């Protein structure tokens, strides 16, 4: 496999000015006033992305993931290290940043294409497709300043995905447009994958990464803390999120609760499809705490099958060891292994207090004829 993106030992630091003296007078009169501080946004990041891979870059706000992406796209220059790229690259960063609002949509398509590095002939060839995809046929000759924000972003997205790039870089832009347009965008990205193009996907939404990526790189305050299969990387990401939350927790609550184990009374996690399952979660708490309990079930492919907090019914933890029973009345899943995550959340289900990723794996056997994940019990008859 050819390395399409080869990030070699990239570091990036910014100078932060505490007192901005940008006038000549100030500089001449007070050459030394105003302190500058060096902020290290990225520290010695190295990884390679092969052709056809879809790699997620995960990290919470301020972890440096956008800086890394901007370096890869060439918007920022790394302070040291280098990035080797093969093939053309289109970035879905800050969509529409290159638009000249005074010009028409048509002119902007060409200008934006040129900005992404594509020739006039190439843009000519895809122009109709761009217009079609963006769904703004009737406004294409209108000045962009009269566009709604949705139209604006749709046009930019349409140019970026239709210019036929070898590498597509996506930065949390899937939140654009209405739901139908979003679905169209996800479709397009899926097709890019199938066509064997390389996609770099940046987000802090773990579900999106699980759904789209083969591999994930995790960044944490400028350091790369994981680079591996999506599941493994996401586990590390979540653990770090927890540690981070502990460090920033004012109520000193985090870390006081741990989920020790998840077991079944029978000791086995093998069940038959359609039967029920009882699980016992052993939770140790240092204080009395009332919150809600959440379970998540994933397929091995990373698809979320179900997430539930049992309608928010509270669990009251006592200091010491608690056992929480989880009853799954019926598991209508088809053949396969399903991974279970469990966690304790606060009342509002906003903050994760304790989390156990892959606390258990459930093996389901199914002897019916349905395919997929879930048994719907479909019956078909002629009327």
């Amino acid at each position, binding site marked *: 496999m*050819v390395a*399409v993106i080869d990030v070699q030992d990239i570091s990036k630091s*910014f*100078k*932060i*000015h505490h007192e901005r003296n*940008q*006038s*000549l*007078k100030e*500089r001449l009169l007070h050459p030394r006033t105003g302190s500058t501080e060096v902020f290290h946004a990225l520290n010695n990041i190295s990884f390679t992305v092969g*052709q056809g891979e879809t790699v997620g870059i995960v990290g919470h706000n301020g972890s440096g993931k956008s800086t890394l992406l901007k*370096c*890869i*796209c*060439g*918007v*920022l*220059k*790394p*302070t*040291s*290290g*280098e*990035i*080797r*790229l*093969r*093939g053309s690259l289109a*970035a879905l*960063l*800050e969509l529409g*940043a*290159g638009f*000249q609002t*005074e*010009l028409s949509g048509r*002119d902007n398509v*060409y*200008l934006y294409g*040129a*900005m*992404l*590095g594509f*020739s*006039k002939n190439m843009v000519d*060839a*895809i122009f*109709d*497709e761009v217009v*079609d*995809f963006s769904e703004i046929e009737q406004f294409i000759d209108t000045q962009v300043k009269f566009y709604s924000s949705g139209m604006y972003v749709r046009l930019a997205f349409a140019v970026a995905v239709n210019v*036929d790039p*070898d590498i597509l870089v996506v930065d949390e832009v899937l939140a654009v447009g209405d739901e139908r347009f979003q679905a169209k965008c996800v479709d397009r990205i899926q*097709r890019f994958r*199938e*066509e*064997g193009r390389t996609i770099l996907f940046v987000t802090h939404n773990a579900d999106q990464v699980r759904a789209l990526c083969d591999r994930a790189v995790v960044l944490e305050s400028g350091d790369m803390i994981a680079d591996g299969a999506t599941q493994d990387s996401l586990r590390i990401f979540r653990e770090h999120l927890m540690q981070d939350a502990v460090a920033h927790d004012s109520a000193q609550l985090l870390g006081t609760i741990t989920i020790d184990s998840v077991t079944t009374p029978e000791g086995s996690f093998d069940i038959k499809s359609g039967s029920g399952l009882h699980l016992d979660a052993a939770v140790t708490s240092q204080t009395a705490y009332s919150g809600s309990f959440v379970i998540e079930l994933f397929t091995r492919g990373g698809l979320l099958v179900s997430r539930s907090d049992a309608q928010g019914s509270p669990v009251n933890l006592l200091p010491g060891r608690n056992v929480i029973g989880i009853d799954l009345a019926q598991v209508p899943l088809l053949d396969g292994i399903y991974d279970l995550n469990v966690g304790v959340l606060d009342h509002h289900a906003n903050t994760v207090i304790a989390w156990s990723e892959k606390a258990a794996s459930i093996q389901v056997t199914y002897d019916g004829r349905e395919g997929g994940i879930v048994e719907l019990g479909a019956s078909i008859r002629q009327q």
Partner: protein
Amino acid sequence: MNEAPLVGQQHRSLDDTPVRVVSARPTLSTRLKTLWSRRELLIGLVWSDIRIKYKNSTLGIFWSMLSPAFTLGVYFLVFSVFLRNGIPNFVIYLFSGLVVWNMFQNSINTATGVIVDRAALVKKVSFPREILALSNVGAAVVYFVVQLVVLIIFVAALGHAPAWRFLLILPISFLSLYFFTSALAMVMSAINVYLRDMKHLMEVLLQLWFWLTPVVYSYENSIAPHLSRRGLTIIYFLNPITLIVVTFQRVFYVGTVVKSTVAPYAKINILPTWSFDRFLELNLALFAVTVVLFLIAEAIFGRLEGNFESEL
């Protein structure tokens, strides 16, 4: 939806695609190669610049001629009619110098602030940043061409024959103008990111610079003759715009020593009396110098652009 172009590319191989390197400090040759590979963007930006400028005006690009025409008219009235400088066909003399000066001034005035003005773009889209400054120079070149055409029509209408042989030097002279203007435009646009006063300072400096260049007065009236008596002509031509202006004047105005229109027997030494070879030689030398300046400017820009994001 027509999706045909995307089909059938499933197995394209990137094995032999050239590798692009993003690094802290690309070499000058890499920078120049990248710049050259993005020339289409430059052309696109030049046209969008011009289109935006005249988008909602009825006269459109004619405005680019109206303002220089007005300047030309005023200088003509003041120097030829009121002050009676006695230079025959003064309009042509003035116009051939102004064409050059307008291109230079226009470029520097617009390019100095361009990186700051387009900060949003600079921080979000990847392209060689100097293209922004170069696009302003490019737009000025377009206006220059328009004015040059008007100048030629003017010369023809007045039945004034240009110096045909010297016409050969004109392209060299123009290229020197282009490279020198681009070099200064790039450096100023980058410096302005760090020192925002540069834009205002340049406006003032350009006015001074204008009067240091023999556009409205003749070679004879400048300090050049005094310098040449001491063999120091070179100092006068340290201002690169001077040689270019003088070459344009030599081509379109032609006369080096002319009869005054006000004092019957007086002669005015209006342009240097160099031979064709001397003009060619000097212009080639200037061309070489401006190319070197352009390369230095590109290198300086590369140094300065590394910290743009923390200043914008």
